[in-house]
């Protein structure tokens, strides 16, 4: 790095500004004082469901189904989270046990 500290700071500034703009832009465009348009309200209501589906796949993007262990720890632990959640509907419990299960699987089984 050495002499490039200034460039590094500029890089960080650019990345921080672009990130902040992406997060704030919808509020500037559609926020305002007036009533939210029906279409934006519709998106606001149903996008979260679709986005959570997207994030789910996003988390699993690094899993390889063609190489051992074929994503088994991720899929098994994920399945446990789903089942626990359907059973108890307690997110701390499903997340906690799911994570412990995953740790055990990758440290001792696979």
């Amino acid at each position, binding site marked *: 790095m050495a002499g490039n500290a200034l460039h590094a700071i500029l890089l*960080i500034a650019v990345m921080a500004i672009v990130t902040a703009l992406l997060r704030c832009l919808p509020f500037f465009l559609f926020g305002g004082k007036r009533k939210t348009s029906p279409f934006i309200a519709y998106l606001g209501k*149903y996008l979260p469901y679709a986005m959570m589906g997207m994030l789910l796949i996003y988390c699993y993007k690094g899993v390889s189904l063609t190489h051992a262990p074929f994503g088994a720890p991720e899929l098994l632990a994920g399945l446990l989270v*789903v089942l626990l959640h359907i059973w108890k509907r307690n997110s701390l419990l499903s997340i906690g046990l799911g994570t412990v299960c995953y740790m055990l699987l990758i440290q001792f089984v696979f």
Partner: protein
Amino acid sequence: MKKQKYAILLKTAFIKTLPVMAGYLVLGMGFGILLQDKGYGPLWAFGMSVTMFAGSMQYVAVDLLASGASLISAAIMTLMVNARHLFYGISMIDRYKGAGRKKPYLMFALTDETYSLICSEKVPEGANPHLFYFMISLLDQCYWVIGSTLGAVLGSLITFSTAGVDFAMTALFVSIFTEQWLSTRQHTPALIGVLATLACLILFGADRFLIPAMLVILTALCTLRPHIERNAAAETEEQQDGR
């Protein structure tokens, strides 16, 4: 009395953010370790986590910094990696309405995890929702800042016996997805999200599937709007009949 109310709300927010704490501390440390390995110490990690607060982008940023990337390419990269945040904002317009002085920070701190928590958590009765959202956002960023700075301080000194704790993040998304699924009979939007993203992941590969996926999701939600709204109306009607 007011102080006590604050404390109770903060405690609720803290409990809700525990899974994020696990994930952020570990992922944050991972980031800090990588960064100091490239010659950027704790102060850099701290500065980046305070000003950017963007998990996956900060990992990308390590490479950009190390390779001395141009400002333009850094801007484009950030657009690509973080474009999904546009959709988070759209979902929060009504929820964040009237947040007053807290609004700028709420908008700034809208990460994947904070977004998920705020979408899924009901605000405790009688509490100011914006204060609750603010606490969740701020706690999440604290975990991230602490994790990444600590990672840069400790650097390669630590060898994890805690391999896999970061699965907490995946587990968080899985449990929220399940909760959302159970809470409605309207499964079309969730299915759109999963299937569109999966298809784009297969088609475009792990490095550039997010933006195509977002476009497909948006198009599908627009095209299927009549269907989704009809279903929603039917569901509300049924619930009212059931009483």
